[in-house]
């Protein structure tokens, strides 16, 4: 069993080991800047991981979710203002997650039940989110407190990994790790996962096997909305402590690119998000160290150039779920 797993995943294991060793070498060689760069990379990756998981769950069930950006924006808005007006962070977090669920439900209902074009449903969601949050935004609100941060016992004492992931971490950071692992296990090692993948690949076969295709899609897309909610709440209540109009700033779309780079697999998307975060940290480090005199616009393009390269390399090897984007009409196939 172990040997067969190793042969099957040989490339992954080798690449992973090389990256890990390189990371540790950099960590010890450049101890003044490396830890902060890793922390910055992870901080950047947290919302991307959560949002990419929303995309993974949706597309694995056959529903394209272009509206993640809007879900995050509304959740960031709802979370921040609910917390500011109620004086309770918990209320804010719940409001944010709840709004993510509601928008997930909206997308699921319109695109699955009413068979609206999924891309259009997502775009509608983004436009509505931008409009609503801009209109009801009121300046001058302040969060009632700070999100609690904590050290995870035992794990936080591991060099590098402990520093970055488990020291002074927040609920959402921990949640992003647990969610990536959880979704991976659920997707590939549970009955729900098998059914979800079947619905995303070949819905008519799944239907024949007695799976309620529409219902499963609706449930999955709706529940995934809670993760988008967490990502949004993280942005306005943890990563920064304010809501601003349009503050998601394209992270929802970036998450979709990361989902593709991660080949629709939760753990690979997790790794890709961190990789992307790291490239971003390198870009700003290059700029601020002043060793290389490049205009910031040029270093700023680094993450996107890398994305294009990775996608170009990956494009031939990864494959989207076969039924993604197609509404399922019983008896039509």
């Amino acid at each position, binding site marked *: 069993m172990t040997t067969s797993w190793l042969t099957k995943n040989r490339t992954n294991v080798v690449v992973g080991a090389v990256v890990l060793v390189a990371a540790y070498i950099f960590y010890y060689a450049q101890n*003044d*800047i490396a*830890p*902060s*760069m890793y*922390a*910055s990379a992870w*901080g*950047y990756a947290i919302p991307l991981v959560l949002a990419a998981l929303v995309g993974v769950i949706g597309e694995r069930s056959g529903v*394209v979710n*272009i509206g993640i*950006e809007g879900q995050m924006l509304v959740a960031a808005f709802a979370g921040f203002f609910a917390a500011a007006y109620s004086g309770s962070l918990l209320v804010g977090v719940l409001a944010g997650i709840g709004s993510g669920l509601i928008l997930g439900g909206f997308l699921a209902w319109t695109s699955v039940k009413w068979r609206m074009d999924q891309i259009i449903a997502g775009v509608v969601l*983004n*436009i509505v989110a*931008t*409009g609503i949050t*801009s*209109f009801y935004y009121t*300046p*001058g609100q302040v*969060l009632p407190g*700070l999100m609690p941060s904590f050290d995870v016992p035992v794990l936080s004492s591991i060099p590098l990994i402990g520093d970055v992931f488990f020291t002074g971490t927040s609920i959402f950071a921990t949640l992003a790790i647990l969610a990536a692992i959880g979704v991976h296990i659920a997707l590939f090692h549970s009955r729900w996962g098998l059914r979800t993948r079947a619905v995303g690949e070949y819905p008519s076969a799944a239907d024949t096997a007695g799976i309620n295709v529409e219902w499963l899609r609706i449930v999955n897309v709706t529940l995934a909305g809670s993760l988008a909610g967490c990502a949004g709440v993280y*942005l306005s209540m943890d*990563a*920064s*402590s*304010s809501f*601003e*109009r*349009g*503050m998601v*700033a*394209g*992270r*929802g*779309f*970036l998450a*979709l*690119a990361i989902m*593709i780079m991660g080949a629709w697999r939760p753990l690979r998307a997790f790794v890709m998000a961190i990789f992307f975060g790291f490239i971003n*940290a390198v*870009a*700003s480090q290059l*700029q*601020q*160290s*002043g060793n290389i005199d490049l*205009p*910031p*616009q040029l270093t*700023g*393009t680094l993450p*996107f150039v890398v*994305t*294009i390269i990775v*996608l170009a390399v990956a*494009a031939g090897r*990864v*494959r*989207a779920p076969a039924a993604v984007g197609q509404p399922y009409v019983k008896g039509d196939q």
Partner: protein
Amino acid sequence: MKSTRYLVAAPAALALALAGCGGSTGTTDTPAASGASSAAGAPADDSNCADAEVFCIGLVTDTGKVDDKSFNQSAHEGAQAAAEETQGFYKYVETQDAKDYASNIAQFTNKKYDVLITVGFLMTDATAQAAAENPQTRFIGVDQGYDAKKVTVKNVTGLIFPEDQAGYGAGYLAGLMTKTNKLGQVLGLQIPPVEKFAKGFEAGAKAANPAVSVTTVYHPAADNAFNDPVWGAGEAKKQLAQGADVIFGAGGNTGNGALQEVAKTAGAGTDKFCIGVDTDQWDTVPAAQPCLVTSAMKLINEGVTDTVVQAKDGDFTELQTLGKAGLAPYHDFESVVPADVKAKVDEVVKQMEAGTLKTGVTL
């Protein structure tokens, strides 16, 4: 297998393209907001602006709102004050997208407004062009430096501020306050007004304390460079982790994100400080109060009011009008900043105002 390749590449390209323009989705989709106000005794609408008796003032914001807590808000308040002083009619339009500059300006010139204020460096070209085409309207371009060879009309003036002086004063203070000898700057887009703040800050810090090192980072994207608090917070966090103990956040909401991050850090207000920009951010960003020593201000408010009042009397004599810049009060940090530091900073600010001290900043 050929087709599956496209299946992946097409959404991938789409996702990338959308990620790239993500910032603009936040602004393009809603119709332009506008608002009007008029002082008592002033005309109630803009139907008679062509009339010599009726004084109409218009304002076009940059891609920001009149409640952005810094730049646009200051100009807006300045215009309101001017409307009251001149018994004029005042109306503003918020720009949603850079491609709308010209059409937003046209909304006012079509109605023959007397004065039009365009806010922001990015509107320089649109303003110069509109001024040439509409001699009946006088234009005030906040933060806009014109090329004297290209702009020959007299109905336009660029209101610019010595940002480098405000930055210099703030940097001087930061250089004296730092214990780690490391300072950080989290900035918006790399455009002249921001660069002048940043270079002034660095020059001031080095003048006060030659041992100091300043790390500077500009937001790379163009669309949301002034509206990405999460990015600003992340960069501030990184700079703090690398030892910086005073952070200058200059770039709208992006900079505000940096200020708030410093405010959240352990030691904020005792050995970690932040410095705001444009307006007195003690009032505008209350969440930054735990660390906010001062703000490098430009007195946009006052500058706009004065220039509008001046415009009532006729065309401008100068192509550029120089406003004022300075440091905001220390507020609660009055007792935290040592007396000798305050004295030195005051001295430097006075010398700059008198013109005896040059910041040496060139772009």
